């Protein structure tokens, strides 16, 4: 062979940074057949001004080729452990079958959000003009799809043994309490790309994520659910990348133009409050649904928001950003949030795809210790009353439909910031129509963008309008039972999926299959 010998010495090997730069920014180009503004039509209407995308500092240097390799390896590890868990019937090693209800709520409420996040980041990745931001968003889009898939495997496994997990995608689009996480994410996805990443990458993944993952993952570990713990580890290594993306996004926007600061402040106010309202579901997981508890909601709020979030917002004041509006209301509510939420689900559990129960005496003792100023005075008497009713065979179910907040879509059960005995009602009139809200926080968000929320798909309104019956249903037929019909429309197995835990098929099966009591000691 007559290969010409290269007289020059071989080119210097690229540094990791140069390599990364070539595989990200180096792949971008400015379009010439069409103006850039037409190719990227969505990155200006929100009012955010970006003068120099090159000032974007890559929060991590992961190229696509390395990304596939890491994620492939992670999948292998994760599925090996999930397989072992399934073969060893690991689902029977959890504390008791009450714990499974936290999984049901998480898997039906949050797993579809992973898929929504996949879609949202794919859209953000399409709409950013800056190449590095686009690639970071695309990688996260793939992460989220992976998380949705691994959780679908978990759902599939638990569905073999427990009720309520048989059709989570169908339920996500219909069920009243699942409209809370669904509408939260759709609000973000239907905003512009900058608001989306501020809402999801920063406000949710960075500021509030510990409050979601900590109780879920530590709760799983405390209660013997090793499959979920492993999923947590696998997802966590992605989450740290998502969190750094959230920080970089906000820094970048704030530094690009002083006019961006008030816009970002408004988004932080909005998405703090929306995220906090969503976390009401987590508060009851922590205080009521985990048979072995990790820490109380109030403690978690103090540690993860008041301290860590306080440090973050203190740093943000350098940019002229202040604490999110109504953060003090969230702190005032921390001693009652979980109790009010759980009591509401206790009322409506017959219309839910998971079970509720009255806490055991030992659990009420724990609640008294964790909530010395509120539990014994305000909430214990109600649980004791319900327990008595239950003993008489009169388990209480609320037969009416609750009024929903137009914004967060949660039933209006939250109380006045300064009075835990009085329900908080707020209302606004827009184009001669009255809209109702659970809080000043939700009302402010509506007032700022009323057109976005006047047509919200509110489950209770939809039921009353007759939109929540299966096709062909005749509401005028004799003996028509509207509630039963709605539950059919939701795809629930009435009498199995919801209602009181004690005596439920789940509780009976647990005893029959494991020989352990339905409520662990």
């Amino acid at each position, binding site marked *: 062979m007559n290969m010409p010998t290269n007289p020059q010495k071989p080119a210097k090997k690229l540094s990791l*940074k140069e390599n990364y730069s070539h595989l990200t920014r180096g792949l971008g180009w400015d379009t010439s057949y069409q103006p850039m503004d037409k190719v990227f039509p969505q990155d200006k209407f929100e009012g955010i001004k970006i003068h120099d995308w090159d000032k974007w500092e890559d929060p991590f240097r992961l190229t696509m080729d390395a990304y596939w390799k890491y994620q492939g390896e992670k999948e292998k590890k994760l599925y090996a452990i999930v397989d072992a868990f399934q073969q060893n019937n690991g689902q029977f090693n959890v504390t008791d079958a009450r714990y499974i209800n936290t999984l049901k709520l998480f898997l039906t409420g949050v797993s579809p959000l992973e898929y929504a996040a996949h879609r949202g980041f794919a859209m953000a990745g399409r709409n950013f003009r800056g190449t590095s931001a686009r690639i970071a968003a695309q990688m996260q889009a793939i992460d989220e799809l992976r998380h949705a898939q691994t959780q679908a495997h978990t759902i599939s496994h638990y569905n073999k043994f427990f009720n309520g997990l048989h059709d989570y995608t169908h339920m996500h689009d219909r069920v009243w309490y699942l409209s809370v996480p669904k509408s939260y994410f759709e609000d973000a996805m239907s905003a512009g790309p900058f608001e989306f990443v501020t809402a999801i990458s920063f406000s949710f993944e960075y500021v509030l994520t510990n409050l979601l993952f900590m109780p879920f993952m530590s709760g799983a570990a405390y209660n013997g659910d090793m499959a979920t713990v492993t999923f947590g580890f696998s997802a966590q290594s992605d989450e740290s990348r998502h969190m750094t993306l959230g*920080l970089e996004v906000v820094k970048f926007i704030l530094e690009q133009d002083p006019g961006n600061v008030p816009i970002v402040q408004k988004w932080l106010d909005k998405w703090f409050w929306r995220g906090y309202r969503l976390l009401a579901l987590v508060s009851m997981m922590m205080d009521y649904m985990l048979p072995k508890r990790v820490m109380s909601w109030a403690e978690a709020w103090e540690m993860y928001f008041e301290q860590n979030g306080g440090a973050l917002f203190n740093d943000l004041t350098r940019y002229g950003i202040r604490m999110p509006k109504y953060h003090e209301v969230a702190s005032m509510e921390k001693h009652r949030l979980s109790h009010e939420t759980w009591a509401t689900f206790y009322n409506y559990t017959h219309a839910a795809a998971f079970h509720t129960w009255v806490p055991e005496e030992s659990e009420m003792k724990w609640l008294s210790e964790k909530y010395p100023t509120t539990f014994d005075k305000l909430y214990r008497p109600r649980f004791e009353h319900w327990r008595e009713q239950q003993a008489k065979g009169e388990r209480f179910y609320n037969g009416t439909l609750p009024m929903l907040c137009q914004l967060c879509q949660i039933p209006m059960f939250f109380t006045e910031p300064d009075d835990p005995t009085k329900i908080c009602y707020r209302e606004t009139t827009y184009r001669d129509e009255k809209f109702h809200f659970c809080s000043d926080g939700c009302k402010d968000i509506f007032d700022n963008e009323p057109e976005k929320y006047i047509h919200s798909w509110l489950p209770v309104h939809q039921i009353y309008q007759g939109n929540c019956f299966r096709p062909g249903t005749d509401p005028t037929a004799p003996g028509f039972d509207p509630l039963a019909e709605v539950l059919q429309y939701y795809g629930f197995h009435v009498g199995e999926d919801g209602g009181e835990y004690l005596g439920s098929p789940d509780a009976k099966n647990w005893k029959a299959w494991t020989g352990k009591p339905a409520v662990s000691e």
Partner: protein
Amino acid sequence: MSYQITIEPLGHTVEAEEGQTILDACLRAGVWLPHACCHGLCATCKVQVVDGDYEHGNASPFALMDFEREERKALACCATVTSDVTIEADVDEDPDARHYPVQDFEGVVEEIVALSPTIKGIRIRLPGAGIAFQAGQYVQVQIPGLDQPRAFSLASRPDDPTLVELNVRRVPNGQGTTYLHDVLKQGDTIRFTGPLGRFFVRLSDPQPLIFMAGGSGLSSPRSMILDLLASGEQRDITLVYGARNRAELYYDDEFRVLASQHPNFHYLPALNEPTETCNWTGARGFVHDAAVAHFGNDFRGHRAYLCGPPVMIEACIRSLMQGRLFERDIYTEKFLTSADGANALARSPLFRSL
């Protein structure tokens, strides 16, 4: 037995002793590698070993996965070398870093001068070639009877490597500074290790420079400014220097002379508690107040170097950021004393180094 570690893309070579981690060897030799937990858990210090033999040490299997070990990745904070090795690290070539090796020095106190009622200047004569350092770097001084050394910036010029000066402010009840103020005397031996730190002028950056100093934090900027002016720097250099009163404003005369000699050097002293006897007609208030007034609250297009106590640094960072100068253009050297640790505010990861 010692080995050589070559760090790409810097092309620098450092010595590593048997059992010394790669990270320790690099840091000791003035080569900075990213690192955080320093015990094998966080993977911030992951490097690629291009050539040579090494041990992984206590790297966690989660931080360094099996396939990464097969690819010859290593965690620098745990890995030790068993031959000469070449590694590739995620470091930016800082074109302005000179990587002077860290050494132990023993000098003789040549002179101690009272620069202000609370600050002493200690001038130390070093044997041989003296210390090679970049203006702005610091040394760790051994205090007899104390386990932990104390950090002081070098206040003198790098082109005078055998006579170094430290500026020491007396910390009330501080054991280290009490020794240096009350016990140390002319002719005594003093030991220190250095040069350390990444606080030096980024000469390759074309933007004009702002120095902001408070109290004995003047030492680094003094060395940097003397060095810049001596080498014929033509860019605008502004020193905003704050002290409580006229008596604490040390080296004031020297900077006034420099400002009159160099039209590109602007000297802006500010007193926050001037007394009657100060006869002060200059700026009043803190360093950041004086800087905001001088620059009209617009710091864009500058590089800023901040040196002083944490409260002053924080106030200056806030003012600079309100005036649209951000992290990439701000360098800081915080002067922490034992009194600062207890009430330091919790920080978030929003900023990498500020």
